[in-house]
């Protein structure tokens, strides 16, 4: 793939990242950080690719280590973010609570 296309994609992704996050309420700073943290765990795809191409033992070992670490990042990240957000579940915010009201997804099981 051409470098310029990748650069264009990168630049656009920078704008998307800036814009999406720029107005987040302070109450969501921590979950947002944690969720973004989970997203970069997608390096797992890269780790799988290199581990899957390994022919020599050392390379495979390092590749598998990368897979373990990336998996921990990815799965741990999403789980811990969900737990944080679960804290706000099922609370009665109907009517009040205003624009900063957190996540009224009712009835999520503990």
């Amino acid at each position: 793939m051409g470098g310029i296309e990748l650069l264009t994609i990168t630049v656009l992704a920078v704008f998307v990242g800036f814009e999406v996050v720029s107005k987040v309420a302070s109450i969501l700073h921590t979950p947002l950080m944690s969720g973004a943290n989970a997203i970069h765990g997608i390096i797992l795809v890269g780790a799988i690719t290199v581990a899957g191409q390994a022919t020599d033992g050392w390379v495979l070992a390092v590749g598998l280590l990368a897979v373990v670490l990336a998996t921990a990042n990815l799965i741990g990240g999403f789980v811990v973010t969900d737990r944080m957000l679960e804290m706000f579940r099922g609370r009665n915010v109907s009517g009040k609570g205003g624009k900063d009201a957190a996540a009224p997804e009712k009835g999520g099981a503990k």
Partner: protein
Amino acid sequence: MTILDPTWTALLYLVAAVCFILALKGLSSPKHARRGNLVGALGALVALVTVFASSRLENIPWILGAIVVGAAIAAPVARRVKMTQMPQLVAMFNGVGGGAAALVALLELPNASDGWLRLAIAFTLLVGAVSFAGSAITFAKLQELMTTRPVVFPGLPVVMGVVLVAAVGAGAAVVMSGSAGIAVVLLGVGLVAGVLLVLPVGGADVPIVISLLNAFTGLAVAASGLVLGNVLLVVAGTLVGASGTILTRLMAAAMGRSVAGIMFGAFRGGSTAGSTTVSERPVRSSSAEDVAVLLGYAQRVIIVPGYGLAVAQGQHTAAELAQALEARGVAVEFAIHPVAGRMPGHMNVLLAEANVPYESLKEMSEVNGDFKQADVALVVGANDVVNPAAKTTPGSPIYGMPILEAGDARQVVFLKRSMRPGFAGIENELLYEPQTTLLFGDAKDSLAKVLTAVKGL
């Protein structure tokens, strides 16, 4: 196995990338935060299925095994961790992600044919290693495996300079030669740099550093996406890098500080953190029973939770006290300062965990007018967030930070262990005001005593 042709593969990766964008969008909105996180997880799932279905992979059993191991380690920890320890867990997950990116880059080095690719690899190695080591130190600080105070030693700036030169040199050598040996050296330099970068940061600033390292890891992942020619990694990494940068600045701004000040403040000798000056001036202190009477016969109480409540893990006791008071007909609210606690927004999470109804949690702007009508402001393990110096003392490290106007309440009760100042290391005049009373002791213990006394009224 290769079931998917390149076009389908690319399309599915694009779907995953869109999921990640939607995840960040969702996470930025209180209503959709949890769903946003799930959408992100869905994107990750799509990407994983795609990578298995599209590449000719060897060693699949090994890889699956490694995934199981990783999941088996991370999921239970993530599920069981205490709310108060989430910051260090996030730091750890962030660090291993950075480490994974660095390892991937290392293994791709032999395949990197041109200088630009090797530059991306050098970048990933360095930044990934910084993120890994830096996160490890933040973890150690937050978990109190080491001192939470800034660690500075005389030659530090010089050492940092040497490390910087070494990083540039090793990076350039990797770009030129593509030698795996030098790449490992660069990795080592990155680890040292990560340690040195985070050591001088004080414990309370660590969350900002976590967010910054999080953005770093995002950039490392984006760069390794360039190396692998994988658009998904490029997009996801860049998203995290960009949003993490903004988030770091937002977090720092909420504390009235600059990111540079946090990272390099200690060098300039201007570290504000962790002073232990104890003042000699007289204060009014009282017993748990007195406080219970004050609270029990009030009409309106505002509780101001702070860092000390998190340290003492007194959130459940605080919630019980609020319940007991409400049972007596006292109106109780919690006033949440955006930077109270260990991380921005952390007080909300802490109190929500203790089942404090969401309506009782008031943001600063909502509640500040209410203190005037409050009979008692109960300040539990908080200090800087109610310090009037932020308004009255130009030159004070917290000058300009918006504070909770606890001083407006008819009575102010502080629960803290001593006269030591908070994070900013400055005296709090509110402690010496006539309407202020102190109840010394660990926040959880004090709350428990007050609770017992309230029940006995």
